[in-house]
């Protein structure tokens, strides 16, 4: 039973990440691969708050989005000139910097050993020790993020983001300050991703730099492309499938080490097949 809750927690965490990725990449058309970095920043904020400062995880749940927002805003402002593949490379650069800092600023991040002994969330007088209790928090945060994303998609702001994806130059002519919109979308997306990081850190109670590499970002791309670019339910479906499919490998009898490798191959294969046969994903109506 614990195993099912464990999977549900992981799905929730990736659901949050995929929704955020969809907001920035699917709705706004910003090709970002920095998803794992903001996820990681959230996790490290939780780790540092919990171990060095002795603060409760609930505080990290508020602090991480704010800290991440500030970082994303600075980053987004300096990347404002970049479009498409240039933006992609710039975000990749940031992810590499993040990984390097996480690995080498030992006094803050614990270096390659990472941070251990992160506390489990403690709220309403109970500590969420088991997956069975932790799932409530994970689902709750996922729900909040989903509501925010649906709210944005249905707002005038969301429609403007779509128009930016389609033709930002043309939209400018109609009186939009496009760069402010892009910055806002990028910042909101980063903040939401950091929430997943906080959950992840306090669930695992242990983090290290290998957990937030470009592989994670690519997985997020795969999720929203599989589910269908620019739909929230597509992002959620993508997260669900890309967690469940590799997990199910274990039951077919693959040992853990091999199923890990198989996972990467499956992601790769899914991406290739999608691009060949259904570039719009399961629910998608859009191309990138």
């Amino acid at each position: 039973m614990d195993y099912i809750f464990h999977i549900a927690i992981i799905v929730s965490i990736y659901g949050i990440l995929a929704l955020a990725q969809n907001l920035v990449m699917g709705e706004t058309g910003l090709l970002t691969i920095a998803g794992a970095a903001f996820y990681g920043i959230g996790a490290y904020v939780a780790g540092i708050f919990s171990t060095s400062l002795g603060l409760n995880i609930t505080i990290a749940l508020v602090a991480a989005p704010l800290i991440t927002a500030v970082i994303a805003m600075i980053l987004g402002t300096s990347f404002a000139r970049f479009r498409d593949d240039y933006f992609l490379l710039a975000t990749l650069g940031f992810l590499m910097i993040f990984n390097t800092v996480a690995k080498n600023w030992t006094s803050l991040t614990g270096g390659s050993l990472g941070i251990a002994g992160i506390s489990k969330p403690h709220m309403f007088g109970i500590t969420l020790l088991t997956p069975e209790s932790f799932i409530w928090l994970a689902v709750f945060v996922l729900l909040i993020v989903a509501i925010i994303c649906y709210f944005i998609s249905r707002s005038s702001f969301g429609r403007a983001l779509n128009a930016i994806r389609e033709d930002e130059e043309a939209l400018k002519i109609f009186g939009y300050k496009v760069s402010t919109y892009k910055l806002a979308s990028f910042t909101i997306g980063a903040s939401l991703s950091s929430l997943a990081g906080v959950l992840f850190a306090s669930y695992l109670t242990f983090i290290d730099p290998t957990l937030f590499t470009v592989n994670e970002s690519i997985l997020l791309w795969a999720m929203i492309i599989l589910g269908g670019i620019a739909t929230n339910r597509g992002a959620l479906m993508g997260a669900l499938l890309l967690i469940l499919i590799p997990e199910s490998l274990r039951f077919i009898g693959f040992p853990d080490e091999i199923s890990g490798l198989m996972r990467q191959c499956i992601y790769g294969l899914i991406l290739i097949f999608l691009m060949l046969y259904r570039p719009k994903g399961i629910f998608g109506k859009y191309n990138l």
Partner: protein
Amino acid sequence: MKQVIETKGLIKFFDGIHAVDNLSLSIEEGKITGIVGPNGSGKTTLINILSGFYNYDKGEIFFSGAKRKKILPWENKIYGTGRTFQQIRLFNQMKVIDNILVVLTERNPFFALFERHGEYHIKCAEDVLKKVGLYEKRGSYAKDLSYGQQKLLEIGRILAIKADIIFLDEPFAGLFPEMIKRIENIIRELKNENKTVILVEHNMNIIRELCDHLIVMDAGKLLAEGRPEKVLSERAVLEAYLGE
């Protein structure tokens, strides 16, 4: 007569060539001003400059007498400027109605976040779509429209923002007679509402029919201007066209 737009010695170059060359002209309020000229004479570049799409290199531009050192695209809303594109630029993977709604709703990102389009926006958008004859297509994606319908949707976007100064860059190009009639009627209606229309067009019959004033450009320069019948009979103008 009020001059809505005035340029003095306007220059724009693209690596070496003068796309707009020392151009001084003025555009009168409430009139339809035609711009004609051979291919590459700088008509589109002029519109691009006046709508903030390109910056200009030298000269001066005045909108209603006020000098504009820089024309920033988002300021079009303030000055009431709208335009269409020679190469159609729609929000392709959005519905027809969303193409209109997006120019009707809140521009400030913070307020836009807490705004959802209401009955009022829908009604405005549907009125516009009825006017350009795309009401039945409101649920289709812009990319699935025919070429002519896409041109109409671009005009719809301009009607929606109720622009006072309207640049139309070859709105009739490649259209069937029936569509041409429809767009002509829309342009006449705009004139009746005292809007200023600047119309780039190659078809001289349409120019004669619609325009109050005609500007002829050649190699980025002003070749002639005046009443259409008169200008189109001038020798220099004929030569510019026949000589190409």
